[in-house]
C-alpha cells in the first residue's frame, strides 16, 4: 500500500510532484529558505481550491458536465458580498449574500440543464453571461470597501500557515468524506461512471446533478466573497479562475470523463499553479513567458501522466477497445482509498 510504486500510481501525486519541482526551482533561484514561499502559496491557493472542489464535483457527474460560470460567479459574488457587508455592517451576511449569488446563478444553470436539456457547457456559459452583466451593473459607481476585520482574519498566519488554508483543508477532508461515505457522494460517482445505469438502478439523477451544480455555485460564491475581501472587488476578479479551476481539477487526477473525484489532488494542482506564478514573478518574466511556461508545463504534466479514458470530451460511456481498467472504472472503495492516500 505504501510502496513508492503504489504511491506513483496514485492519481493525485502528479500535481504535488510538479508543485515540489517548482518549489525547488524557486529555492534555487532565490537562494533562500522556502518557508516564506510556501506560506505565501498557502495564502493564495485556498481560493483556487474552493473553486476547484466545486468544479471537481461537477466534472465527476459525468461526460459533458462542466461549470464555465465559475469565473463570472466569483466576480459577481465579490461585489454582492462586499456591498452587502458594508451596507448591513455584518460580515456573515455579506459572505452569505455572496454564497446566495452563486446559488442563484447555479440554479439558473440547473434549470436549463435538467429542465430544458441544454448541454451544460452552454447552459453555464449563458448563466455566466447573465452573471457578468449583473456584475457590470453593480460595479457601476460601486464605492463600498471590503471589511477590514475579515481582511485581517484572512491575512492571519499562525505559525506561517494561513487560517483560510486550514479551513479549506478541513473542507477538503469533508469533501473526501462526503464522496466516500454519504449517499450523495456514492450516487454522484455512480452517475459519473454510467448515468443510464444509475438511472435504471433508481438513483435520483436529476436531484443529485442539480445539487452538484448548486454546490459548485455556492463554493465559487464563497471563494468570490473571500477573494474580493482579500484583494478587492473588480469585474474581472474571477476571469483566470475559469481555466485554472478546470486545469487544477484534471492535474489533480480527477477524471474529466467523470466517475472519479480526487479532492486531495485539487490541492496539488492549485499549489503547482500558484507556485508557478510565484516563480515567474520572481524571475521577472513577462506575462508572455508566464503564459508560455504555464501552458507548456500543463501540457508536459498531462502528456507525461497520460490519460485514462479514451473518450475524454463529452461522449456517453461506451465500451472501447482499450479499456484502461483501473483508471476508467474505479470501484468506489478504490476511489476512497486514493482520496485518503
Amino acid at each position, binding site marked *: 500500500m505504501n510502496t513508492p510504486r503504489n504511491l506513483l500510481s496514485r492519481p493525485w501525486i502528479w500535481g504535488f510532484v510538479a508543485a515540489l519541482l517548482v518549489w525547488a526551482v524557486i529555492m534555487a533561484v532565490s537562494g533562500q529558505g522556502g518557508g516564506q514561499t510556501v506560506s505565501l502559496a498557502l495564502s493564495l491557493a485556498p481560493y483556487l481550491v474552493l473553486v476547484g472542489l466545486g468544479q471537481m464535483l461537477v466534472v465527476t457527474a459525468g*461526460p*459533458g458536465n*462542466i461549470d464555465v460560470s465559475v469565473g463570472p460567479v466569483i466576480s459577481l459574488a465579490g461585489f454582492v458580498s462586499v456591498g452587502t457587508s458594508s451596507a448591513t455592517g455584518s460580515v456573515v451576511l455579506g459572505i452569505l449574500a455572496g454564497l446566495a449569488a452563486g446559488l442563484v446563478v447555479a440554479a439558473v444553470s440547473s434549470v*436549463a440543464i435538467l429542465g*430544458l*436539456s*441544454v*448541454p451544460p*457547457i*452552454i*447552459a453555464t*456559459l*449563458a*448563466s*455566466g*453571461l*447573465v452573471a*457578468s*452583466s*449583473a456584475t*457590470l*451593473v453593480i460595479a457601476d459607481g460601486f464605492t463600498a470597501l471590503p471589511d477590514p476585520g475579515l481582511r485581517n482574519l484572512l491575512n492571519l498566519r499562525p505559525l506561517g500557515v494561513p487560517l483560510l488554508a486550514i479551513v479549506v483543508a478541513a473542507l477538503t477532508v469533508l469533501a473526501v468524506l462526503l464522496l466516500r461515505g454519504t449517499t450523495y457522494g456514492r450516487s454522484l460517482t455512480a452517475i459519473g461512471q454510467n448515468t443510464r445505469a444509475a438511472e435504471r438502478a433508481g438513483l435520483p439523477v436529476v436531484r443529485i446533478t442539480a445539487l452538484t451544480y448548486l454546490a459548485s455555485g455556492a463554493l465559487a460564491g464563497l471563494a468570490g466573497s473571500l477573494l474580493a475581501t482579500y484583494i478587492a472587488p473588480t469585474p474581472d476578479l474571477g476571469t483566470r479562475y475559469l*481555466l485554472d479551476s*478546470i*486545469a487544477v481539477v*484534471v492535474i489533480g487526477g480527477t477524471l*474529466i*470523463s467523470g466517475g472519479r473525484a480526487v479532492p486531495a489532488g485539487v490541492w496539488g494542482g492549485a499549489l503547482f499553479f500558484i507556485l508557478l506564478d510565484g516563480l515567474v514573478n520572481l524571475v521577472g518574466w*513577462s*506575462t*508572455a*513567458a*508566464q*503564459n*508560455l*511556461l*504555464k*501552458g*507548456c508545463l*500543463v*501540457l508536459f504534466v*498531462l*502528456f507525461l*501522466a*497520460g*490519460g*485514462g*479514458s*479514451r*473518450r*475524454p*470530451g*463529452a*461522449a*456517453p460511456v461506451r*465500451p*472501447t*477497445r*482499450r479499456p*484502461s481498467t483501473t483508471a476508467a472504472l474505479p470501484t468506489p472503495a478504490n476511489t476512497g482509498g486514493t482520496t485518503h492516500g
Partner: protein
Amino acid sequence: MTDALTSALPTRAGVRRSAPAAVSTIALAAMVVLCASLQPDVLTVPGFSLVLSVAVPLIFAAQAQMILMSIGDIDLGIGSFVGLVTVIAATELVSSPLLGTLILFALIAGYAVLGALIHLRRVPALIATLGASFVWLGLGLFVLPTPGGTTPEWLASFGAWQPTSFPAPLLPILAVALLVYLMSARSTLGVRIRALGSNPTALERAGLSPLSSRVAAYTAAGALGVLSGLLLSSQTGGGDVSSASSYTLITVAAVILGGGSFRGGSAVPWGVAIGGMALGLVSVTLSLLDVATNLQSAVQGGIVLAVLAGRALIGRVLR
C-alpha cells in the same frame, strides 16, 4: 402517387436531424426582420454586409470547432489560436511574407502534433487544448505585447472589398461551409473523421487508423483557425492576441445552435454557418434596440438559452 408524396416529404428522422438548424434559421430570420424594422438600411447591400461581417471570422472558427466536436473532442484553445494568427498576420506576414507564411504553416502543424499527442497519450482534448491555449496566448504576447501592427495590403483590400450586387461576407461564409461540407460529407476522409466520433471501434476494425483520422481533423481545424485569424485581422486592421478570446465558447454555442452535439459523429457545416450568423446578429440587434452595454451579454445568454429551449420542445414533440 403515395410513394411520390412520401418521398417528397422529409422523413421524420430527417426532420428531427435538421430541426435544430431550422430553429436557428427562424431565430435568424426573426432578428433580420427586427433589425430591418428598426433600421431599414439593414436590408441594403452595404447595410447587410456590415451586419454580417462580424460573423465571418467567427464562422470560420466555428467550423474548426465543429470538426473537432464531430470526433468527440472539444477545443478550448481556438480563441487564443485565432488571436495568435492575427498577431502573426499583423507583424511577420507584413515584414517578411515568406517567414510569416512559414509560421502560419508551422501553427497548423502544431495543431496536428497536438492531435497526435492527444491520441497517443490518451489525454482529454478538453484539457490539452486548454493547456495549448496558454501557449498560444503566450506566443502572441511574446510577438506583440500590445495590440497593434498593420495588416498586409492584400488582406486589407480583401477586408475592404465591397461589391454592389451582393453582400461580400456571404461569399466566404458560403465558401467555407461548402468546403467543409465537401470534406466532411462527400469525402472518404470525412467519413473516417465522423466514424472516429461515432464509433472508434468500428473504425479500427475496418483496418483504418484512428490516429491518422484524429490528426487529419486537427490539421483541418488548425487550417480553418488560421483562415479565421487572417479574416479577423483583415477586418480589425491589426493584431491583438486577445481579440478573439470570446470565440472559445461562442464557437461551441454556434455549433450547438447549428445542430451539432458533444457526442461526436455528426458534422453540420451549414448549420454552423446559420448558428454563427445568428450569434453575430444578436449583438447588432441589441445595439439597434439600444440595450445598455452592461446588459448585452445577459440578453445574449438569454437568447441562446431560449433557442435551445425551443429546440428541446420541438424535439419532444417530434419524439
